[in-house]
């Protein structure tokens, strides 16, 4: 095996190596890091972003992006709190996740059937949902009347776990099984690799895309419900920085922004890595700005590593030039049955 091949193999599992190094370093340098209380707190915090990362991974594998997850999280959390009175806690949670999923469906329809770039669609829905969340609360935070669900959702189970953490683990494992073992899961990689290729082999690409955005919306909403229930508070400002943090985590985990590459478990590990670093820094009392510089540096090192290893070199430094290039090559061929513009422009 060549050196390059070894490096590439190491790169494929880099997130496990980096996470292991981070945990070992934290355990050595910080005496209180490996206590059950701290680890459970860390996992509790990471579980919300894990939910979002799982949904975003699906979208990224299919070759698209969803910027609306942060606003979706804020709005769904707020809905879950506001609807507690009329619907009860489970009813409110289900309603919030359903609404989040419907937002995702709307995103997906605009992307798949109207052919609008997912970056722009979800940018627009990000702004709109934030506006709706602000209007709903009049710019304030809303609090739930009953503190009991809040206490339950982060309560201790089996020493290291809590309901929040269990939900996140189930979401990660289920999504990973879907991606690795089922036909729809494998199909996502085909679509992400080549939209037209997928369509030509008879895959209903557009339905898949709607499904992927619906999943992303539902996962983000579930994350919002978990966050807001945990804090017993809904706020339009939750999730403002979430998109950036989660994209960073997912990319560090090894999911490509170019599509057709990624795994739910690695994305979850990426979230855990950032949560570990954040937790370790805050226990040591290291100021936030150092954390930010560190996180930004980590992110840039990872993309630099990606391009150095040439893994994505052929596909260049931008999101795939979807449709445009594909169509120009298609123009000489007989036109496909359906309009070939399911993706971005």
């Amino acid at each position, binding site marked *: 095996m060549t050196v390059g091949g070894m490096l590439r193999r190491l790169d494929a599992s880099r997130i496990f190596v980096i996470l292991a190094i981070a945990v070992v370093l934290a355990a050595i340098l910080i005496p209180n890091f490996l206590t059950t209380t701290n680890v459970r707190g860390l996992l509790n915090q990471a579980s919300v972003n894990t939910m979002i990362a799982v949904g975003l991974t699906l979208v990224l594998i299919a070759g698209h992006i969803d910027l609306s997850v942060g606003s979706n999280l804020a709005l769904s959390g707020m809905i879950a709190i506001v609807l507690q009175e009329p619907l009860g806690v489970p009813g409110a949670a289900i309603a919030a996740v359903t609404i989040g999923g419907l937002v995702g469906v709307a995103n997906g329809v*605009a992307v798949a059937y*109207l*052919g*609008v*770039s997912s*970056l*722009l*669609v979800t*940018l*627009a*829905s*990000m*702004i*709109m*949902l*934030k*506006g*709706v969340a*602000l*209007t709903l609360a*009049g*710019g304030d935070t809303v609090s739930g009347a009953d503190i009991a669900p809040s206490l339950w959702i982060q309560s201790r189970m089996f020493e290291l776990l809590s309901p929040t953490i269990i939900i996140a683990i189930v979401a990660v494992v289920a999504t990973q099984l879907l991606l690795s073992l089922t036909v729809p899961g494998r199909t996502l990689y085909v679509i992400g690799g080549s939209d037209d290729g997928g369509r030509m082999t008879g895959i209903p690409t557009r339905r898949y895309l709607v499904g992927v955005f619906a999943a992303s919306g539902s996962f983000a909403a579930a994350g919002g419900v978990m966050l807001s229930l945990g804090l017993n508070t809904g706020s339009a400002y939750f999730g403002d920085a979430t998109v*950036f943090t989660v*994209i*960073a985590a997912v*990319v560090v985990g090894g999911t490509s*922004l*170019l599509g057709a590459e990624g795994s739910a478990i690695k994305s979850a590990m990426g979230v855990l890595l950032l949560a570990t670093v954040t937790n370790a820094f805050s226990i040591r009392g290291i*100021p*936030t*700005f*150092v*954390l*930010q*510089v560190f*996180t*930004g*540096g980590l*992110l*840039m090192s*990872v*993309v630099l590593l*990606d*391009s*150095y290893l040439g893994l*994505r070199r052929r596909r*260049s*430094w*931008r*999101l795939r*030039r*979807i449709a*445009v290039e594909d*169509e*120009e090559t298609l*123009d000489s061929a007989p036109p496909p049955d359906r*309009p070939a*513009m399911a993706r*971005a*422009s």
Partner: protein
Amino acid sequence: MTVTSSDHDGIGSAARPDPGERTSPGDTPARVRMLRPLRRNGILVVLGLIVAIAALSSPQFLDPGNLQNVGRSVAIVGVIAIGQTLVAIVGGLGDLSVGPTVSLVAVLTLGLQPTLGPEAALVVGLLAGLLVGCLNGVLIGRFRTNSIVTTIGAGVVANGVALWFTGGDTMFGRSEGLHAFGTGSFLGIANIILVFGLVVIAGAVLLGATTMGHRMYATGGNLEAARASGIRVARVVATAFVLSAAAASIAGILFAALLDQVNYDSGSSTTFASIAAVAVGGTSLFGGEGSVLRTVVGVLLIGILNNVVVLVGLPLNAQMVVTGAIILVAVTLDAVTRRTRR
């Protein structure tokens, strides 16, 4: 579609009506050709409609004072959006580090005034902003890293530096001159609007009348073809990101000058606002087409809508819903007309 479309088709290329506008593919049926002027100027029609509706629904709208308000409210985001236009044209999607760059430049410009004096503080602020741009440019241009992740990373770092510098406090201006410039006007037009105008002219000249501008279109239109024809694409891409950071730095100084008090997070909302303006104007984020004037129209469109929302008495939060809806309508129309064009 792309500037290199004439490579792909023979017959229709001569029918390309206007070489300055880089949106036309050559070979198109007559029905589609008829739609083309509409498609190309549809956004202007929308802008005209909205101005008309605004003027009818609120008598204050056409008041010169109110128009200045619109201009003032969009000038800062507008300056940034011109930089974003260059990034979009080279195919870099968007520069997500502009918000933190604006904040960083603004806090340095105000916070260093007591120690360095206002002029030197301004220069240090500008240099810090350009440094962010150089970082983006080298990584994305030379090492071909993904532009979204790279600019997120650079933004997080810039934000961290701004937080370190301010320690979380608000920075207040200590110089009368800068604030007087930010709030002042020249010949009846607010200074920040004039600066916006100068940046627009600079951007339009760069794209329309310089070799670098043409190389930007070529690179964004088809990277490999541009490289094959001898363009140093790494430099072109890097230039776009450096100029985007330069625009963000100018915006940061305007921000500081106008408000005279900023904190490490003041500029964060400008990132998506500027990308939205570019997209609404109809410049493709995937490269090869677009213009500064389109972006100006996009900026004005969003600014006027937000103004109207306030004038007719809707709650401020409704602004975001309206802005989001307009972006959605604009990009959907764009995608649908593109499809009919084929």
